């Protein structure tokens, strides 16, 4: 591929780099410096409550991860090995759950479990498991698919019972995928915010929730900042261990993929049917409950919540303080702007990365950093950084969309860079022989390839923005709440029509998100995108 002239690459790289530096690096540094300033570290780390929260965050993440692995192995197995009626649907359902906004997932479980159980730690863990099943199924599945079934046959002829085949042959061979999946699920559950806030009882707090509680509810920024750094340190430690484990376990298998087959013997058919139906039930129940509860009002089953959506009266004249319909307008506006920002910055960055070859690595890694940083950290950092003239941007309409764009840009970049890099170098050569300068060659040959991945990226960015809760919890102001925030508020009003309205809004958000992602998944780009986002820039 012909290289673009240096100044063009520089020009392309500057906006993304500046954006990243100002809105990501600077807030992170602010967090760090505020944390180590003074005795905040000692005071906060000296409190027992801090370690109780940290410990809870850790053990619930470990339990959630283990359970997700265990629960996810069965559907991963049947999806990888067999062709059966409903396979695509099951895969779609599992993926649909994964892309749901966190508050919607929380709402679904709040709706599913009976009152009294639905605010327990068990409910939080259950929600985590179902939420993250897709990671196991779509990470372990493809690797499992590659294991020749004859290998299991060979083990059987050597006297291995089905259980021993699984533990001694299958498990070790899918272990790299298991390790990869578990580290992803751990990161998600360790930094869980929306699910815990919606489902968890008042005392159930992960580090992220505690950061929010200290900063937003109690106004104790110093403690919040130290907790934020503590969370990042703990997370980094785990990620380092897991990538070391991943390197150790990944070995070239040199296997040839085996075809999926229909289940044959009666026992196999029963097995597939049992796992299939159970998976459908487990995955479908929360969504069904979510929609169903929106029709359950204090005065019985009715569509009142839907028809009165937006009317948040508690008593004559006294309203909730959040206007749900206003929230919809805010969310849509935010999503439009966030998508625009993400696509423009993502496109520029992708072009620079693809054109710069080796030196593009810095920008590549840089643009992926927000994926490894929780949205809460991003939002909180922005909140405490941009609060003084001449950069007092707290009330600016573009702050929230930028926060959303930060979370979405990595996806745009990953979708686009891959496509750009795969452009046939012959096309460049052809353009050059026809007299085109490198820049002109790029413009004519490469840029047209941008539209498809950018459309994918834009759709993802919109879905991410609509459902974003973590950063928005810090950045949004009282008159510009978004739909996820409105949902969380409405759901807290147990036993009133307002809660049913919350379920209604959550259902709508679920449908919109799933529709957006489904539109994109068709193009198959999503699968490669997911894998490359998971593996990082290679």
């Amino acid at each position, binding site marked *: 591929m012909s290289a673009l002239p240096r100044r063009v690459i520089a020009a392309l790289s500057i906006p993304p780099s500046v954006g990243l530096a100002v809105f990501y690096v600077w807030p992170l540094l602010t967090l760090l410096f505020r944390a180590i300033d003074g005795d905040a570290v000692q005071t906060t780390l000296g409190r027992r409550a801090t370690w109780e929260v940290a410990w809870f965050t850790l053990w619930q993440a470990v339990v959630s991860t283990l359970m997700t692995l265990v629960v996810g192995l069965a559907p991963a197995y049947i999806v990888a090995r067999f062709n059966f009626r409903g396979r695509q649907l099951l895969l779609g359902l599992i993926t649909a759950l994964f892309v749901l906004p966190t508050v919607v997932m929380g709402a679904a479980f709040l709706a599913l479990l009976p009152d009294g159980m639905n605010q327990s730690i068990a409910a939080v863990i259950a929600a985590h498991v179902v939420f993250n099943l897709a990671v196991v199924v779509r990470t372990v599945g493809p690797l499992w698919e590659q294991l020749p079934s004859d290998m299991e046959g060979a083990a059987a002829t050597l006297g291995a019972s089905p259980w021993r085949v699984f533990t001694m042959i299958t498990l070790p061979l899918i272990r790299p995928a298991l390790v990869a999946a578990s580290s992803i699920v751990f990161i998600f559950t360790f930094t869980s915010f929306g699910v815990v806030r919606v489902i968890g009882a008042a005392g159930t707090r992960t580090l992220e929730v505690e950061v929010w509680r200290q900063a*937003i*509810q109690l106004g104790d920024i110093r403690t919040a900042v130290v907790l934020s750094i503590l969370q990042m340190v703990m997370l980094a430690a785990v990620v380092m261990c897991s990538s070391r484990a991943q390197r150790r376990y990944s070995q070239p298998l040199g296997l040839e993929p085996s075809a999926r087959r229909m289940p044959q013997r009666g026992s196999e058919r029963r097995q597939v049917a049992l796992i299939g139906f159970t998976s459908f039930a487990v995955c479908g129940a929360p969504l069904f409950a979510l929609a169903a509860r929106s029709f359950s009002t204090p005065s019985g089953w009715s569509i009142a919540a839907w028809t009165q959506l937006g009317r948040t009266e508690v008593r*004559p004249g006294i309203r909730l303080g959040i206007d749900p319909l206003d929230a919809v307008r805010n969310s849509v506006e935010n999503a*439009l702007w966030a998508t625009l920002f993400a696509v423009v910055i993502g496109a520029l960055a992708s072009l620079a990365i693809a054109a710069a070859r080796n030196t593009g690595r810095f920008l590549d890694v840089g643009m992926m950093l927000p994926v490894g940083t929780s949205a809460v950290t991003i939002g909180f950092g922005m909140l405490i950084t941009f*609060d003084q003239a001449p950069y007092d941007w707290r*009330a600016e*309409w573009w702050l929230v969309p930028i926060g959303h764009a930060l979370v979405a840009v990595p996806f745009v970049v990953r979708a686009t860079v891959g496509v750009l890099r795969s452009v046939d170098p012959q096309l460049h050569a052809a353009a050059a022989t026809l007299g085109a300068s490198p820049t002109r060659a790029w413009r004519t040959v490469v840029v047209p390839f941008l539209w498809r991945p950018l459309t994918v990226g834009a759709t993802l960015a919109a879905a991410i923005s609509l459902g974003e809760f973590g950063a928005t919890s810090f950045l949004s102001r*009282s008159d510009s709440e978004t739909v996820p925030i409105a949902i969380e508020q409405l759901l*807290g009003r147990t036993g009133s029509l307002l809660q049913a309205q919350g379920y209604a809004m959550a259902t709508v958000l679920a449908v919109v998100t799933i529709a957006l992602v489904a539109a994109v998944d068709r193009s198959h780009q999503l699968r490669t995108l997911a894998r490359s986002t998971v593996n990082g820039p290679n």
Partner: protein
Amino acid sequence: MTRRKPASAAVALMLVVGACSSDDASTSEPAAITLVTYDSFPDAETSMNEALQAFSSETGIAVEILVAGDTGTMLSKAALTVGNPEGDVMWGIDNTFLSRALNEGIFEPAAMPVGAELPPEFTQLSPDGLAVPVDFGDVCINYDLAWFADADIKPPTSLSDLIDPVYSDLLAVQNPATSSPGLAFLLATIDEFGDDGWQDYWTALRSNGVQVFNGWTESYYGSFTGAGGSGRPLVVSYGSSPTAEVIFAEPARKEALTAVIESTCFRQVEFAGILAGTEHPNEAAQLLEFLVGETFQAELALNLFVYPTNSAVELPQEFIDFAVVPESSRSVGPERIDANRSNWIDTWTSLVLG
């Protein structure tokens, strides 16, 4: 390679949307200012709102009401947005939260002194006049008379009674971190049981099944059986809440449906102030003055069910008939609150929620 160019259409759409969304109210007179308040403040349909509309027509200053959540959340948001506030005047910081508000510097002084004519017992709580006292009342345990009569249980008469197993799973309180009656009630227990005893008391309350809500509206309208809720017959509310129940009862009633445990009452004074960094200090000062003026203060009793600080206002008869003013209610000094509030809230959180 001819493809449709959706980008230009999308960009055009976004620019249009963006133009509509940027609220730039710096145009002509009259200015519009925002009154930031808590979630039990009516934003339409009551006589209080009509009084505000009258103010608007007279002065040409439009007043928009922004409900920011419960008191604690409202204060936290104000603290996070100091210098770039979400509104111009804030109503509803009470004496339990006041020191935090003043320490965070969320208020700025009015150009001319406001509220000088108010009784000193209230104004002395905010010495440099940054916050102006607008109303007062008591935070007390309310109970549902009918419920206790039906259950044939004698209602509790003191704080100590509440940990009696007879009353298990009957009490609803609010989170002191976020709710001003919640904090007031916590302070009442600290006042009663002292620095050494209040923690045991709350541990006992927890074992006795106390339910914690984030805000007053949720607990009162959502749970209190005496107000149409379906949860609990005992709730932390106001000394004047029984009055509200009588006045709003349908069909009309002549007797109280709910009552108050007087020995649990804690004196609460609410303040209003101009938010620091407001773009409309003059208009804000005018509104502030209106809020403590007779016209507005006269509407407080029957709408917010609090007592006006403006002593020139006459209370409506129904109010006098049904409201309970305890002989003495508890209080804790502002310096003590200031020094200990966050520790108390922290300890309470781990005792009751942790």
